[in-house]
């Protein structure tokens, strides 16, 4: 699908999709959305990129080891945030009780740990989705070339 129109449109639209995905991730605690929804939107931008420019140039932009590291780091980050509350003397994943600043409800930097947790989930989902997609694509390409 090396079509000129697709390429031009993709180049134009991908940054907007990514910003929108990031918006959904960051506003997960004040509006509908969150880590999973935002992460998938962000991943869809890269899937569009693969569609337009091919998997090989996508690999150059986002090497496999980076995607893999983001994926694992997202999960470890989530657990690490949860473990903070253990050291504050409350139970795992405690939020306000563990001393996370609550902020003003409705603002972006509010709701303490939830903000950070959503961010971690968003990163993880983003990289997982893109890894899943490139893996399936890879199998197909290998097969196509024999």
């Amino acid at each position: 699908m090396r079509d000129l129109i697709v390429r031009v449109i993709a180049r134009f639209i991908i940054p907007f999709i990514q910003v929108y995905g990031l918006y959904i991730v960051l506003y997960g605690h004040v509006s509908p959305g969150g880590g999973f929804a935002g992460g998938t939107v962000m991943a869809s931008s890269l899937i569009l990129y693969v569609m337009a420019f091919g998997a090989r140039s996508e690999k150059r932009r986002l090497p496999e080891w980076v995607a893999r590291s983001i994926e694992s780091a997202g999960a470890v980050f989530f657990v690490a945030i949860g473990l903070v509350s253990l050291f504050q003397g409350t139970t795992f994943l405690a939020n306000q009780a563990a001393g996370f600043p609550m902020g003003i409800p409705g603002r972006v930097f509010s709701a303490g740990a939830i903000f950070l947790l959503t961010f971690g989930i968003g990163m993880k989902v983003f990289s997982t989705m893109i890894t899943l997609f490139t893996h399936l694509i890879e199998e197909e390409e290998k097969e196509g070339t024999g």
Partner: protein
Amino acid sequence: MITQHLPALIILVPLVSAFIILLLGPNYVRFARHTAMAASVVLTVFALLLLLETTQDGTIRYYFGGWQPPWGIELYIDRMTGFFLAIVSSINLLVLVFAAGVLEQEIRERVVAHYYALFLILTTSLLGIAASNDLFNIFVFLEISSVSAAALVAVNGNRYAMEAGVKYLILSTLGSGSVLLAIANIYMVTGYLNLTYIAEALPAAFAQYPLNIVASLGLIMVGLTVKAALYPLHIWLPDAHGSAPTTSSAVLSGLVVKVYIIVFIKFLFRIFPVDFIEIFPIQPNLLVMSTFGILMGSILAIRQTDIKKMLAYSTVAQVGYIFLGLGVLTPNAVIGSMLHILNHAIMKTILFLSAGCIIKLTGIREVNRLEGVGRVYPLPMAAFSLGALAMIGIPPLNGFVSKWYLGLGALDADQPFFVLIILVSSFLNGLYYLPIVIRSFFGREPRFSEIKVLPIGARFTLTALAVAIVVFGLFSALPVGYLEPAVEQLFAG
């Protein structure tokens, strides 16, 4: 500080270690092995501490984020759960020690690190299912366990294993789908997901919406018996357990199948009051299915020529035993079931691991070509024989004790027919295990071009499991003494 967080840490330690292994990637095999091993050691210590704690305080509760139920997610560790956590973590440790020397030769180098990570994720899910007191949490862990178990089956890249993996994945998704629908029905009529609260709200809900409860009971039965491979629904098991790598088969047969039974016990005792079970025909259904399972599993095992497939069919029969105890539903029978969960975990692990050793050392998979192998390789064959004798139920070994309690339970319920079933099945077990044992030790000594040596880890694991078989057989008062109050606790609701 750390002791109060044990219930959460026991789930988090393997999870975090798995992701740390994945973070470094497939090239750090040694690091992966050491991390997995360290995590399992920590896990086993934690589980044993929890086991001790349950003997003193009874039930341990842990609220995530400090939110009290019914709002928050609760971990609930009673004696039964503590027992299972200890089994999972210690078998897990032994299998990992075994894997250290053997695994690298069985699967491709590139996936070894991932294998350890998957293994730890599977352990996480097993511990999570057992410890969780929240229905949806249980569902999520169920799905994690089925995906990671299917991955552990398919990991060695041979096509039979792939096919078995697909089959396993589809059927177990069907099972978890049924469980989720059941959870939806329960949530619909009670408004809770926490087991304790559901149990309180259920009688009122039953008066108002009886059909939903009946539907959910049926769906739970179907969903969990598919996943636990009770007889007519066992079709995925022999392929999956027979074609997986050795360590995977051991864990899948020894632990993964059992965890669904633990969930079933949770549903049966913790949610539905005992008089519910008498209203609905759960018991007769379970009895019929498990009787057929015990007999057909053994008969099908006799017909197998492949040693691992034979062991897999034997698992079908043994799952039948465990469900038989739940079907009879007297305290002794339930003790028998719980004991069999422990004993079968030990026996099947030793059988699969030693069979894997034999296959690796001699390259022979066929049962009737094992002639004289025991003379060349005494340790794995002796371990196999000990496991086989325990499986048949020869008295001083552990398999006998659980069968004894199942029989006692059946007699308590005035159903001597099931004692007969147990005896017949022991005879059938003898029919397929004993020829292997006899032939391998008294047959003509074969000539192998080279004599290979087992790695030290494998030897250690086989010896430890063999000791466990004898110890739990001779000192059966140890687990029974722990389980008696546990079962009392269950019957009290």
